[in-house]
């Protein structure tokens, strides 16, 4: 009796004898049962009166074989017939008894209850509503936590803040620099073609300066932050939630928001403006390549850039970056803290953090456009 044999020379079989009894033979392990299950049940369902099952030719019986016998018996119970098992060896009978001892019934909920379409719509609505109100609640709670951190900076776990600054900030510099450089290069190059037709290619620095500083710099930096760090926050805190580490914090009297969310949000708040500046710097370097290839000197490029860009452009860009970072880091931490149970819940909350982060960035960017327009800056 050694689990699975090397070669399955003897395969199980089922036949009906003259008296209409089922005759099972061979090895009733999972491979054997796979062969005889359907024919055996069909034969049993087709026969009439008491169902006799002859097992004297069964050479081996394990859990799979026992399941077949249990199912045959159950079939008889369902149709109100008698079932007579015969010919089981002693140890096989003992095995069957072991399996059936604690068995209540087979006809139990093996699948989840079916939910009607209408109910699904209702559930979806309730879930949406709950999400939105959770979000508002979270906004309030985290503002309180942040405010408290500002009021008494001694309570903040600065060690965590600095280490998050490193992972979310310093380590993000290469990708930010690369994307910034490429965007500056591509934008300058794409606009060079039409502008040159009008002899206006001297205005490339103006265009680049305003679009990068005011719009693209903060936006792309925030998008990268959402994909890189917001997702990481959600996954990290979500895994802690699944492992009950968050519960452990709570019962120690440590507020998970203060302990986990505040350091991350603060770190994001610190590094995002720096990353935005870094992004803009590389975008301008990219633009410089294009402009100098068009025959202008670097001095011309820098002078034009300086003349066209105001302090207001830089300031609005950095304010946007800070607000985006609060949204992205906050939503990342929130997704983590609301993770359900199990590994797939961590995946779900990571996805949710990125999607919600991007939506919030887009919405906030629109609001900023209106606001700055109204304020005239």
């Amino acid at each position, binding site marked *: 009796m*050694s689990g699975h044999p090397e070669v399955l020379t003897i395969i199980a079989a089922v036949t009906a004898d003259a008296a209409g009894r089922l005759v099972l033979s061979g090895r009733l392990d*999972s491979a054997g049962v796979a062969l005889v*299950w359907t024919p055996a049940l069909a034969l049993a369902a087709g026969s009439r009166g008491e169902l006799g099952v002859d097992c004297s030719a069964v050479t081996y019986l394990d859990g799979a074989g026992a*399941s077949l016998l249990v199912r045959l018996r159950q079939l008889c119970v369902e149709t109100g017939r008698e079932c007579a098992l015969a010919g089981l060896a002693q140890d096989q009978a*003992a095995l069957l008894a072991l399996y059936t001892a*604690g*068995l209540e019934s087979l006809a139990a909920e093996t699948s989840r209850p079916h939910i009607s379409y209408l109910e699904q719509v209702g559930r979806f609505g309730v879930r949406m509503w709950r999400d939105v109100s959770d979000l508002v609640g979270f906004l309030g709670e985290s503002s309180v936590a942040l405010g408290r951190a500002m009021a008494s900076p001694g309570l903040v776990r600065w060690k965590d803040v600095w280490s998050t600054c490193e992972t979310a900030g310093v380590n993000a510099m290469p990708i930010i620099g690369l994307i910034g450089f490429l965007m500056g290069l591509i934008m300058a190059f794409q606009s060079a073609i039409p502008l040159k037709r009008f002899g206006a290619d001297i205005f490339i620095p103006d265009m680049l300066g305003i679009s990068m500083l005011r719009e693209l710099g903060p936006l792309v930096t925030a998008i990268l932050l959402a994909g890189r760090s917001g997702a990481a926050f959600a996954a990290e805190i979500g895994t802690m939630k699944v492992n009950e580490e968050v519960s452990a914090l709570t019962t120690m009297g440590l507020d998970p928001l203060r302990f986990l969310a505040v350091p991350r949000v603060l770190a994001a708040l610190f590094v995002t403006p720096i990353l935005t500046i870094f992004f803009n710097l590389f975008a301008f370097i990219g633009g410089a390549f294009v402009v100098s290839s068009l025959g202008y000197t670097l001095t011309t490029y820098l002078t034009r850039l300086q003349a066209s860009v105001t302090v207001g452009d830089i300031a609005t860009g950095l304010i946007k970056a800070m607000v985006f970072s609060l949204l992205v880091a906050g939503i990342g931490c929130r997704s983590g803290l609301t993770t359900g149970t*199990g*590994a797939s819940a961590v995946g779900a909350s990571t996805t949710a953090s990125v999607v919600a982060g991007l939506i919030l960035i887009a919405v906030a960017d629109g609001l900023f456009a209106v606001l700055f327009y109204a304020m005239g800056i």
Partner: protein
Amino acid sequence: MAETGQPIISVRHLTAAYGGRVIIDDVSFDVARGEVFVILGGSGSGKSTLLKHMIGLYPPASGEVLIEGRDLIQAFGDERERILRSFGVGYQSGALFGSMTLIENVRLPLEEFTDLPEEAMNVIARLKLSLVGLGPFAGLMPAELSGGMQKRAAIARAMALDPGIIFLDEPSAGLDPITSAELDHLILSLRDTLGITFVVVTHELASIYAIADRVIMLDKRTKKIIAEGRPEELRDHAADPWVRRFFNRQASETEE
């Protein structure tokens, strides 16, 4: 049941290390077919490490592990898969898949490794679950169960393919005495009816006396096997006083 006198598992000069840190140093032992073999030792002595090396989860620093005469460590491809399928493992923390219901957890190996019809897989999975007393909970998610129930479900999953060997890492830790005794009873009935060989890591003295045919005891300091034999024998006649104290449940003397 015993087809041969050859040991079903044999561990030869096994040295286990994490990085450069040796946890188990050159141990050898055999597990006979159909026996309940218990691995003992203080906490941190490397019981789980030994178990994980026996099931091929980590490659040993040196030495070999033979399962039914086949070398698990050298094997690869189909051969390795066949050896892996010949045993089931219940992990210390349960290791159920959190995104699946209990019955889906138990059905997973059946779906992957057999050609059984859907209905057959459901019936088999149900029988395994009711064997560990979890029949009525088949449709629940692991997170909806207590720790002890998760452990039992993990054992049901380990048994899904009716393996000849089952490895269990601290199966009764965290179970109440009654459930723990029922688990012991289950292990013995499976051994008696199916001839399954069990390799069990446990601390529970009561359960050791109830189930163990043979124990080995690991020593944290020497990193070797400090004692081997039947538990009653070790309790009364072990050469090492620490081993006797363990079996008699006495506190260490102060010089330690």
